[in-house]
């Protein structure tokens, strides 16, 4: 069976190559469309987000610099943005989001969701 398996592997590289080349082509297209990335700051203090409403331009990639001033780690999470990232205590990190369509995208701190609530507003 292993010989025929090897055979089918070579047989099946065709579609795989097509998908790969499509991905590469796609990445070139988006690379060209890439503009200077806007950076916004989001602070975590006492399990609260500051600002709790982040207003960003729509249809543009944005770099969020998250600074955790708390002595505890926090996890930035948003189902709407498809983002999830742990930020250690007293440290900072970056999360890239977008380009987003116009709308509101709630986010929360998964470790302290009762207080750590916020929303990204794309305008």
């Amino acid at each position: 069976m292993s010989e025929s398996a090897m055979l089918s592997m070579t047989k099946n590289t065709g579609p795989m190559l097509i998908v790969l080349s499509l991905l590469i082509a796609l990445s070139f297209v988006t690379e060209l469309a890439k503009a200077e990335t806007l950076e916004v700051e989001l602070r975590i203090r006492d399990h609260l987000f500051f600002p709790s409403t982040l207003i960003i331009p729509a249809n543009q990639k944005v770099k969020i610099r998250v600074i955790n001033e708390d002595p505890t780690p926090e996890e930035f999470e948003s189902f709407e943005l498809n983002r999830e990232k742990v930020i250690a205590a007293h440290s900072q990190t970056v999360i890239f989001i977008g380009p987003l369509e116009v709308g509101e995208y709630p986010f929360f701190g998964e470790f302290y969701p009762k207080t750590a609530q916020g929303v990204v507003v794309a305008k």
Partner: protein
Amino acid sequence: MKSIRLFLATSIVSLLTLFNFVAAVQGYQSSMREADALFDNQMLDLALLVSNLDVSDERLRSMQLGEDLAFQIWQNDKLLAASANAPVQALHQFSEGYDYANFSSYRWRTLAKYDRSHEKWVFIAERTDLRFVLAENVVLQSVAPLLLGIPLVGILVWFFVSKGLAPLQKLSFALKSKPANDLLPIDFGDSILELDQVIASINGFVARLESAMNREKSFSADAAHELRTPISALKIQLHNFAGTVDAKGDAYNELQQGIDRMQHLIEQLLALYRSSPDQFDAKGKSVNLLDLAQDVVARLYPEFEKKDQQISLESEVEREKEALTIHGEFFALETLLTNLLVNASRYTPNGGQILVALSRKHDNVILSVEDDGVGIAPDDRERIFDRFTRLSGNQEVTVPGCGLGLAIVRHVADLHGASVKVSSSRFGHGTAFIVEFPSEKIVNHGMRDERVGDA
């Protein structure tokens, strides 16, 4: 190995845990929602109360409601009064309803209420973290038993599953401990729906087996027994015949040898039948092997003398006779030693040596029979214990025997939990049979030799 008990216990505990815990989470969520609504209602009551305060009272400005509450009273975009922990800006939009806001390093639940009669806006804020902790502590009190109960439930499930499977265990124990010669039906006491068919089938098999065994038993015993008489008669007739006719030729000798062989075969068949597991007397008695060996050697002494063979009995522990005592069946053990000695005598040339040795190794008693005869090739050493096996070799054709002797030796040894090994003897050439008996009483009831069936 698959275990029914483990499968039942883990799957039941998993199901219980899953449903219990999901129920706990659901209960927690709905209780928390209820608590939230309750707190919101209290905020509304507080708003009504605050709206009736006299805003001209100076003391109102420095009033503290407690760290978890704050209020503001606005009129025409002007802050009339506020608690000390309230911010200077409006803590809510000027529209009635509930919301959340962050100020003074906390997240607050906020309420805006418009007082039409005084044309005032009353804002109430309550710290979410504190009211959450308060609510959670209450709700968890009701959830905790669901969690803490699970280990107890696990132990109980294990107990009940074991209890439920006990009849099965009882049945398997009853089958396991059933002696080989016990063909009585299993009496299980209580009737159990799931096991009744199994027990009925087993008992059916046992009954059929018993009748088959009985038939076979009586057939072989009767056949052997019935053959003894005519053969004895035949021998006498032959003897008489020899007296009347002058017939001392080869034909006569062959006839006599043939009848002797047949007689021997029948004696051995009877011995084999008596040493079968289902015929074996399970109780056993103390048998001193030294006494036994002395008896057998004395009885067989004429045989050895006939061939001018030297027979000796050697015992390492002669002083402690007790040390050579085992539990067993005297007749069977006697047959074992007799067969070994007859075998040794047969395959040892005239003038050879035969040695019976008794010793102890650890707690085991070892009986060995050694000779300086022709010996057995290593490849043949297992085969000789099979029934009707006689090693082919030119000189052996002349040796009388039926090939059952060593099969009987193996049988008797098995019944006593003893092992039989064949090796070279200490005389350099020749064979040594070494039988090692365990010291404890090991008469293995359960042992069934599958070869018994083809006897």
